[in-house]
């Protein structure tokens, strides 16, 4: 068995490679795999003493430590790794880096750990690594989806928009089919067990890119004493130097020696961070650049350090940024340009020099610039046969053709590829001479090859520069966009600035690094420029023409991941989508996971060509964060699972858990909802707790209520302005309930505020409103009333609160308190007094949210768990029962007290709540007062809060149910009078009770209305009542 797909037309082989017809034994396979027929005899950064065995679609593959999946597969003759998104055509590896558009694989088979859409060019291999092809069923070699390719002419650009149009409702059906066909890889099915973390880091100089310019920049900046971060996307520093001619010399050192020396110099500085396998994926405002570090994706899971996270998100805030992100080589456009085995010339060199792998044994080179000649000569020197250099220009730059011919390489000038063949790997190209108009003229000539290197010119990698909002400039000489005007504190150096000469890159990097450090306030001087011996041919005079043979010749692909062709783009322009942003979305060009890194500029060129515009007039699409797809894990960091967000607990939490509490969330708080006893349902528990609070003693943990300490001579004035009622005469020792409105006159919060001294008050707010009310009050105090002598400080958690209610409470209080007579006669309702329990200071408030005899004990929080248990013990003879928030809701509903946010929804005024008495007409202005007289707010037929009693006392209405006037539910739209806001079965009344907001409800007392049932059915007849059900009961009305 062979893994090689170099015999692409052989169907039987195709079936063997997908594993459906195994050849005998894995041993044979391993032996075949270990041959690595495309591995060079020597060279590369791989460790040949460490063979690494992994699998691709279940079949064994061998490579060496230091290989990527792509380099190991190519070493074994495999280029075909995936299938295209739309037409399911075979897809190979185009580049050697993160810009590769379509060489996407699934890594790992574990339900929780599998990673889809991983670039084969980025995934480093380790023993036991499992790699799978994507977007192919039942197998990569035999894929049903390829039928889309047969019918490709029925899938033009804008296919979605044209096909899935109507009739109304049909999208629901289409969506299922589209969803099934969409996407490439498989998402993990189980929760991610890996850890991730965020690290905030500040530095003076961030250098992005570890190539020659980046290394020079980092060195220059580090020598000034500045804090430097150098990040490099791949496993090793060096960048293009790792792919350079080994004969190159920098200050007499080989590229590898120079890189090692530079790295050693950098590591000697304390304040330099070198991050490899780290991609700068987002450039944000204020010079924040986010880096994505992969710590262990290259390691065997068993070897991964459990103390370390899998990946880190570095949020780097840099004073200055140096972008040394290099350049990306563009492919060429010609019919059949999407076959596996077609690689960029620079990728072919990287595979040869960095990984010791030849992309083919018989390589053809197509180019529009001199870099193609450089690649051809070096690939030949590396051991490959060069079939020919096909140069679309009539003449090469000075020395290029000569060097090729000296190396024995044939060159076809003024020629282009017009078609290719080879199913799973390119096998033949057909070449024709070009006429003056760029069209083919000569007779076709077919050349056999097993790889095709394409050199379409270099595009500076300006993604981060553009993310920083820098303006691009088109450079005619290199036929690409380069950084123009900077907006943030950054500078580009080296190839990312359009500088390709090695010596110039080193000098430009050093200059940028020093300038950045100086700009950040550090001092230093420029070092001497290194001497460079480099024979590389640069692009030279590039022919930017898009040479496109006649349309009939076959499909020319622009975007090989999303399967967008030149024809699609031209059709988009023809149909009016001429703007680059429109054409992108209409055709999906550059919208794959690669975001069109290599291919976008070709798309812009086609759009320009079709509209007879110059390329700069077409412009570019927007470069957005992230530079490449980032894992959800690294976005979330440590804030997942139990660490997701704070769950605020009171000091009584552990006791509540131990006593069987079920909790509910209230904001970030966990509050005890009810305390069911063994064998009791939560509903039964709520009824029992409510009865206890009415008949004996109930105790509620009310610690979560917001509390604000208010001090200052103008405190009363302040309260008069923020509450609807009057506060001028509230004496020290007394408490008062207040309603707070927003400017629209709507109820925003409520609570009891206590006068401790003339210039000292204690305000309480709702639990959920605590933070927003304080911010609201501070806002008014600081911006509207800075003259008021008032200061506010939150004391929410300083005081823990036990709210005791029930007829036996005074007796219990008498037993508890050291120095206070709790007799309700001498210590009346709405009063407070300081006291002690076992010598511990407490504040006792005679306030009630139940309508019964109540005491609230406030104690410094550190004593509260002790005090809670002391009260439970002292209350046991009285039948004390802890109750939760549900019984609290029921108790207050029996008394007709509102809950802001349940019985109000931001559209209720105090008048709507029929709490007119809470609105002082005598005092001066207060927030929301003016809005109460707006015609709409003053209407008398607004929804008003009323009580509802069902005819059948056992029927409990559903909260949210609609209140209507008729006994039968009319056809929609149903005229709605209001809705039920609170509904319970009241043990005190022995029947159901409900609160509702009803149009003109205050004028409808004793009227019969009807409440709808969820899901239909005969509406439930109800009688409108006042809200204080306890009084109704006492009066015999309920």
């Amino acid at each position, binding site marked *: 068995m062979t893994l090689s797909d170099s015999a692409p037309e052989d169907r039987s082989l195709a079936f063997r490679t997908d594993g459906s017809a195994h050849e005998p034994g894995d041993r044979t396979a391993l032996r075949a795999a270990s041959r690595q027929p495309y591995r060079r005899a020597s060279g590369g950064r791989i460790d040949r003493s460490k063979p690494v065995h992994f699998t691709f679609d279940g079949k064994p593959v061998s490579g060496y430590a230091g290989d990527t999946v792509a380099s190991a597969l190519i070493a074994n003759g495999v280029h075909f790794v995936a299938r295209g998104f739309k037409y399911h055509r075979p897809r190979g590896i185009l580049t050697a880096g993160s810009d590769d558009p379509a060489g996407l694989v699934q890594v790992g088979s574990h339900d929780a750990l599998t990673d889809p859409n991983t670039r084969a060019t980025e995934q480093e291999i380790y023993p036991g690594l499992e790699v799978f092809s994507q977007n192919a069923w039942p197998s990569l070699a035999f894929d049903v989806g390829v039928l889309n390719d047969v019918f490709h002419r029925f899938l033009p650009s804008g296919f979605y928009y044209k096909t899935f149009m109507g009739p109304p409702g049909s999208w629901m059906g289409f969506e299922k089919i589209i969803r099934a066909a969409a996407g490439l890889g498989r998402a993990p099915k189980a929760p991610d067990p890996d850890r991730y973390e965020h690290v905030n880091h500040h530095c003076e100089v961030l250098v992005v890119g570890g190539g020659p310019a980046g290394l020079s920049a980092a060195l220059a900046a580090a020598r000034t004493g500045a804090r430097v971060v150098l990040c490099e996307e791949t496993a090793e520093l060096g960048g293009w130097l790792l792919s350079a001619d080994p004969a190159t010399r920098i200050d007499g050192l080989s590229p590898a020696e120079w890189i090692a020396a530079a790295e050693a110099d950098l590591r000697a500085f304390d304040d330099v961070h070198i991050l490899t396998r780290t991609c700068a994926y987002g450039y944000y405002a204020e010079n924040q650049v986010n880096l994505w570090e992969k710590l262990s994706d290259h390691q065997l899971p068993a070897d991964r350090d459990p103390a370390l996270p899998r990946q880190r998100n570095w949020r780097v805030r840099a004073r200055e940024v140096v972008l040394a992100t290099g350049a990306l080589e563009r492919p060429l456009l010609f019919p059949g340009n999407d076959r596996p085995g077609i690689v960029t010339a620079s990728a072919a060199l990287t595979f040869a020099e960095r990984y010791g792998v030849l992309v083919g044994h018989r390589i053809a080179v197509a180019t529009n610039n001199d870099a193609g000649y450089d690649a051809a000569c070096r690939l030949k020197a590396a051991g490959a046969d060069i079939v020919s250099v096909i140069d679309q220009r009539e003449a090469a730059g000075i020395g290029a053709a000569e060097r090729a011919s000296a190396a024995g390489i044939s060159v076809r000038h003024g020629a282009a590829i017009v078609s290719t063949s080879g199913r799973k790997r390119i096998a033949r190209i057909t070449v024709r001479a070009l006429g003056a108009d760029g069209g083919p003229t000569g007779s076709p000539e077919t050349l056999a090859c097993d790889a095709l290197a394409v050199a379409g010119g270099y595009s500076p990698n300006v993604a981060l520069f553009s993310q920083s909002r820098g303006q691009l400039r088109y450079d005619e000489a290199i036929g690409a966009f380069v950084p123009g005007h900077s907006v943030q504190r950054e500078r580009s150096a080296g190839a990312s600035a359009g500088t390709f000469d090695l010596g110039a890159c080193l000098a430009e990097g050093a200059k940028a690094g020093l300038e950045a450090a100086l700009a950040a306030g550090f001092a230093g001087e420029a070092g001497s420029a290194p001497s460079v011996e480099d024979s590389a041919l640069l692009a030279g005079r590039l022919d930017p023409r898009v040479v496109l043979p006649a349309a009939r010749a076959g499909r020319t692909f622009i975007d090989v991941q999303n399967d967008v062709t030149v024809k699609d783009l031209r059709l988009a322009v023809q149909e009016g989508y001429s703007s680059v942003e429109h054409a992108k979305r209409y055709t999906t060009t550059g919208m794959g996971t690669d975001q069109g890194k290599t291919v976008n500029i070709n798309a812009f060129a086609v759009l320009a060509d079709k509209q007879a515009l110059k390329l700069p007039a077409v412009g570019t699409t927007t470069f957005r964060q992230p530079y490449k797809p980032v894992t959800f894990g690294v976005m979330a960091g440590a804030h997942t699972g139990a*660490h997701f967000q704070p769950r605020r607990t009171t000091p009584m939490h552990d006791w509540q858990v131990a006593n069987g*509490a079920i909790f509910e969330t209230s904001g970030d708080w966990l509050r005890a909802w009810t305390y069911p006893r063994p064998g009791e349902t939560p509903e039964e528990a709520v009824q029992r707790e409510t009865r206890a609070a009415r008949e004996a003693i109930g105790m509620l943990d009310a610690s979560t209520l917001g509390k604000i300490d208010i001090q200052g001579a103008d405190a009363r004035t302040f309260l008069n302005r923020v509450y609807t009622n009057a506060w001028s005469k509230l004496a020290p020792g007394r408490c008062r309930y207040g309603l707070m409105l927003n400017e629209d006159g709507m109820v925003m919060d409520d609570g009891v505020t206590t006068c401790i001294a003339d210039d000292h008050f204690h305000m309480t707010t709702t639990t959920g409103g605590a933070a927003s009310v304080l911010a609201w009050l501070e806002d008014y105090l600081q911006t509207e009333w800075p003259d008021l002598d008032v200061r506010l400080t939150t004391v929410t958690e300083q005081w823990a609160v036990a709210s005791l209610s029930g007829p036996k409470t005074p007796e219990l209080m008498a037993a508890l308190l050291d120095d206070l007579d709790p007799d309700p006669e001498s210590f009346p309702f709405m009063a407070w007094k300081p006291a002690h329990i076992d010598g511990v200071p407490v504040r006792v408030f005679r306030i009630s949210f139940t309508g019964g005899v109540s005491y609230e004990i406030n104690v410094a929080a550190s004593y509260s768990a002790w*005090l809670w248990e002391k009260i439970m013990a002292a209350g046991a003879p009285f039948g004390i029962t802890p109750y939760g928030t549900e019984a609290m809701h029921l108790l207050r509903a029996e008394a007709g007290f509102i809950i802001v946010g349940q019985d109000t929804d931001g559209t209720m005024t105090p008048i709507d709540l029929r709490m007119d008495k809470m609105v002082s007409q005598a005092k001066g202005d207060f927030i929301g007062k003016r809005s109460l007289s707006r015609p709409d707010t003053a209407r008398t037929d607004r929804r008003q809060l009323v009580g509802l009693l069902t005819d059948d006392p056992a029927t409990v209405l559903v909260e949210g149910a609609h209140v209507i006037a008729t006994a039968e539910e009319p056809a929609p739209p149903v005229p709605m009078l209001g809705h039920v806001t609170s509904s319970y079965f009241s043990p005190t009344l022995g029947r159901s009770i409900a609160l509702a907001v009803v149009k003109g409800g205050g004028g409808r007392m004793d009227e019969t209305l009807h409440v709808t049932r969820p899901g239909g059915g005969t509406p439930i007849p109800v009688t409108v009542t006042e809200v204080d059900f306890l009084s109704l009961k006492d009066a015999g009305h309920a």
Partner: protein
Amino acid sequence: MLDPRRRSPLAHRMPIRAASGAVSLAEWPFLSKLIVRCQAGRDATAVEAVTGVALPTTACTSATAGERSLLWLGPDEWMLVAPDGEAAALETDLRAALTGPHTQVVDVSDYYTVITLTGARGRDVLARLVTIDLHPRHFAKGRVVGTLAGAVNLLVWLRDESDAAGPVFDVIVRASMADHVWCLMAEAGRAFGCPAQEPRGGERLRGALEDVA
């Protein structure tokens, strides 16, 4: 003497000392803490007379005298920290001393607790929680900032730093969120040898029951 009836917010957590020795976490319970609002120009003398500490007026700095410190929180706001048991007397005395308008003295000792973070990698641990620049050039001994760790407000105070002991950070956090922050800090210290700390949890939740039903 410690009153056994009191319980601190992190009483259920044992101090952590990473195997590497580079990170230690411990609660500093029951420290007296008071919010002092006053006008620096007018009231500094009065505050110093009561507390013995000169009122720091430079943003994000603190001043210490003996066992008491004043932490700058805002142009007219400080936190006074003092040994356990001093809060009540300090509150009374300061209120008596600060008679002018726009003043406030409030005991918040039990509102917040303190997580003390020490060890050579203390800065690295905090850098995983807060966005501020903790480099010694920018965050030296005595510095104090109010900031966010995820969804949590906290104060970060570099109480002390020496070559021998390394940095001593006090993280002042609301009692109700202390367990969350403690666990986040331990998680941030994992790379330096801190054991994982499981946040408080596992309670029966109303929604979860309804899901089952």
